[in-house]
């Protein structure tokens, strides 16, 4: 199994969820995060003092999928989350050694 970690723009969440669901994903974990990347770096003014805004709100998806689905899901996310503006996000893939569904005790691909 693979863990796909995708950080995307928050307003793309619903669209991406629908797309990966259509592509066969049955679950995911979603976290509100702050992203730092090339998108950052503009300055704001607060009470007369300038400061740099380094972090941008993003959403992080963590999806575990069977090995054979990984590539397809990565491309689905990449295609759906793209706006072609800076800050669209990244997708990372990690190897997962084991999985358990708490409710049933099923393991690995069955647990997904």
């Amino acid at each position, binding site marked *: 199994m693979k863990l796909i970690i995708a950080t995307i723009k928050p307003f793309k969440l619903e669209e991406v969820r629908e797309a990966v669901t259509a592509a066969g994903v049955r679950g995911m974990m979603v976290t509100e995060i702050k992203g730092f990347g090339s998108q950052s770096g503009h300055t704001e003014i*607060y009470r*007369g003092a300038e*400061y740099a805004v380094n972090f941008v709100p993003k959403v992080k998806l963590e999806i575990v999928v069977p090995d054979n689905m990984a590539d397809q899901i990565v491309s689905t996310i990449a295609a759906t989350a793209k706006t072609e503006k800076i800050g669209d996000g990244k997708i990372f893939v990690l190897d997962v050694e084991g999985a358990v569904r708490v409710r049933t005790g099923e393991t690995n691909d069955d647990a997904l």
Partner: protein
Amino acid sequence: MKLTKLLPAAAALTALPAMGFAQEAGVDAASDTIFIFNSLLFLIGGFLVFWMAAGFAMLEAGLVRTKNVAMQLTKNVALFSLAAIFYYLIGYNLMYPLGTWSVDGVLSGVWGVGVLEAVGVARDGADDYGYAATASDFFFQLMFCATTASIVSGTLAERIKLWPFLAFTVVLTAVIYPLQASWKWGGGFLDAAGFLDFAGSTVVHSVGGWAALAGLLVLGPRIGKYKDGRVNPIPGSNLTLATLGTFILWLGWFGFNGASQLAMGTVGDVADVSRIFANTNTAAAGGAIAAMIMTQLLYKKVDLTMVLNGALAGLVSITAEPLTPTLGAATIIGAIGGILVVITVPLLDKLKLDDVVGAIPVHLVCGIWGTIAVVFTNGDASLGTQLYSIVVVGIFTFVVSLVVWFILKALVGIRVSEEDEINGLDKAELGMEAYPEFSKG
């Protein structure tokens, strides 16, 4: 207030003969009515100014970081409560000697707790039948004392220890505020000199500001505010609360300025109170709009926190004379206050004076401006006397406050440890968070 609490009584009495019916026995139902209206004015004004305590609490809770919110709330509830108790124990009679001075025009000769009139008091038993019920006056005056203390807490937020802060509050509300207030509103030497400060741009607001400034100098800025020669803004945690606080203060200010007329039992008095309400409102509006335009021009974006400060600046600016200006003049006086705030906030930062909520720009700077502005619309005011009084009150308050802060620092320390400051006062000093939830589960 208009003059001292004694004088309106006289004014009311002299007005009576003009009324169209006999005055046997010197008192009659009409003068009862005046007594009732005046007392009612104090009660309404008093509860409105009480409400300002909630306004300060919300404003400050909104402008500190989450990790210090519970502490800021605690300080605000506690300082109001202490003000209530110590103004009763010492302050009230210190502030209103009613002519009995131990040092003439400077130090009251009346010591002891505040005493109210008897239950069900009649005309003859009233302390001052031509004025208002003593308890209504006490209730109203107490709120001004508490306001002064509220001003201090915002400036020093996020790093001052709870108990030393409260100790200062006790000195401020028992002694510093009432003593200097007696010079003007107790009929002391500043009043005699012709100083005019209707509802306290100087007596209340700049006094709060000076006390805060003294504390700030002893306390120093928050960790991380000034680093490598740069100002690092520390945004407040909740601008909705800050806005709510500002609206509360704005509402309370109608009582603050309006009831400082000290009388509404005659056509002239109620019309004056009405003028004051209208002028107070328009000055706040002027301050808000001026700050909004200023930040748009200077920074290309409107800064809500400055707009809120601007409204308060307008209110402080009109407080020294909310009666004589026309609506237009009041708007301009308020607007200049709003501009002053937008200019002064970054200026203080240049001086590394880290005033968390902008209390010094709002209450001290605009308190001075408002006191000076009296001369533009009130022919009785003299610029010299106004400046003289600003300086006298300022030096007194600043020096005494500085001494008290230094003593507290030497005795117990006034600043939390670096670690406590980083972790937040809520955890360090209260062991309690304002928004403690982690998981909604």
